[in-house]
């Protein structure tokens, strides 16, 4: 029989490979149909005009200052949001990682809970809190701390506050995951060798938590780059980000090619950032650092 000449373990391997492929097929179909095909279509559209090939949509990045200014503002925003999220998120993750199991669960629940509320609802909540006759300004004026209401929203500040709030879990969770794995014996050893708490933190804990810092920063940065709802609702029409440029190009100017080219460039930026980050920390750990 032909079967007898085949190594039985090899046949088994093949069968297993086929099975794995079969099991993967639905997932591959979903990724192909819903991600690869639309993205390909997007890229195709970005180089088409009136039925021919063109680079005109990309040339706009060099000639139209609105384009690069929007990218500049978006990156500026992403830096500020990432820095703020790190400053706010690090202490939270630190405390959560060091606390007893019950407390750390409680802290994480507090971080994750708002995460399940719609982004739209949270953006409006900030609007209600921060607007001229909102809670914060009413409290400040009635306490006599300010004479006139502060401009807290409908500008970049309000956008940043809401965006940081929405993206904070993406910073805290990777940080917590990394910190939790740092053996407490190491910091104890540092202390027993005579290091002050600050010294031990800076020399032992902080370097060991760096993978989490990088993962959190990359996630928050990349997500901010594509943010739409908070700048649209809280930016007062002046905080103009890339996502809004895309939507205006479709809604107002009906320039699908231009909108596609902006999306492709933004996507390229995101890939580039992930590539850069992967020199520091492998890609799987950014996405999987939970």
């Amino acid at each position, binding site marked *: 029989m032909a079967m007898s000449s085949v190594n039985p373990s090899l046949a088994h391997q093949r069968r297993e490979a086929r099975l794995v492929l079969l099991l993967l097929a639905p997932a591959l179909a979903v990724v192909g149909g819903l991600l690869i095909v639309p993205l390909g279509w997007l890229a195709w559209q970005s180089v088409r005009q009136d039925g021919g090939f063109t680079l005109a949509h990309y040339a706009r990045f060099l000639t139209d200052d609105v384009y690069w200014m929007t990218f500049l503002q978006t990156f500026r925003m992403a830096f500020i949001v990432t820095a703020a999220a790190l400053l706010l998120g690090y202490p939270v993750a630190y405390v959560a990682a060091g606390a007893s199991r019950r407390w750390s669960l409680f802290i994480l629940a507090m971080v994750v809970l708002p995460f399940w509320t719609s982004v739209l609802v949270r953006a409006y909540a900030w609007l*209600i809190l921060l607007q*001229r006759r909102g809670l914060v300004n009413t409290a400040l004026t009635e306490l006599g701390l300010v004479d006139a209401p502060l401009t807290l929203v*409908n500008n970049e500040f309000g956008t940043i506050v809401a965006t940081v709030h929405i993206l904070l879990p993406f910073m805290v969770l990777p940080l917590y995951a990394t910190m939790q794995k740092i053996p407490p014996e190491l910091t104890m050893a540092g202390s027993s060798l005579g290091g002050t708490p600050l010294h031990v933190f800076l020399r032992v804990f902080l370097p060991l938590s760096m993978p989490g810092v990088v993962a959190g920063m990359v996630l928050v940065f990349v997500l901010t780059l594509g943010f739409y709802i908070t700048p649209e609702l809280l930016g*007062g*029409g002046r905080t*103009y980000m890339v996502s809004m440029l895309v939507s205006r190009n479709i*809604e*107002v*100017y009906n320039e699908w090619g231009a909108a596609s080219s902006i999306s492709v460039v933004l996507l390229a930026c995101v890939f580039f950032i992930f590539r850069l980050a992967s020199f520091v920390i492998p890609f799987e750990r950014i996405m999987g650092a939970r």
Partner: protein
Amino acid sequence: MRVTLSIPAIMAALLLSAAAGSAEQITFVSQGGAYQEAQTKAILDPVAKLLGITINQDSSPDAWPVLKTQTATGKPIWDVIDTPTKDCIRGGEQGMIEKLDFSRLPNAAEIPADYKTAYSVPYEFYSSVLAFNKEKYGENGPKSWADFWDVEKFPGTRALRSHPMATLEAALLADGVPADKLYPLDVDRAFKKLEELKPHVTVWWTSGAQSAQLLADGEIDMEMAWNGRVTAVIKEGAPIEYTFNQGFLQETSLCILKGAPNLDTAYKFLNAAISPDIQANFPAYIDYGPGNPAAYKTGKISPERAAQMPSSPENAAKQVLISVAWWSSPAGEEAQKRWASFIQK
């Protein structure tokens, strides 16, 4: 569960549409929401009854991109759309909208020539008006765009739409250009005047809902907004007032898709929908005015209601009719592109 439940529903829908296939029908598209509900009662149902046709409805907040994809195939599904006149014109120029044969639309004869184009008939009018907070300004609120620009005499937070249409016109009126000499717009002069006000504009709004919320929450003291949004806020009890003085009259129009599957019925529908008698139903359901001014002569609209309507002859006289022809011209397109860099800088 959902699947088993929905199969009979689909079957029923198929049967119904097959039955309707024997009678004349059209597919009509508007912008959805309360607006489409109101016109269903005011216009669509009465017209369907009058003509004995079936009107299938679809809605699309922005019909333009869909229009483009539908006509690209050469076999559109839609027949008639209710959309900003500009889309009818540019659609017509790009071969997506039917050029109208006015001999088949006798009811269009008495509509002023300004309101019609080769591709469209006016359907309903709305207005971009100056609204302000009564608590802030009392009886002496801003009454013109010159007042709106006067930050010394009228301190307070301001909002404008993040769109050049009507905003450039307001800037020119504020700068002293007479209303009948606005077009063609002096775009440079308008942007210069806007730069002047820019530091004092708190919000450039992007959606009608946002403009209403800004007024209702007291975030904004004066604003250019659509009259329907303003009256809705007033009905909720907000201390807001508005004036039609120097308002900007804009219309949405009806137009027919090129290659519409039911062209003859579409013409019949258009003619009936713009008849004075049908048009006079609009004010009973929504704060947007009839596209055919003859509707005010039918006696169906009370004088009190007419006073709240942007297109009543009295109010129309105080306002400026936005020139869609200018905004569809290359200069108009250019002004729209320039807006993005004005906002950004």
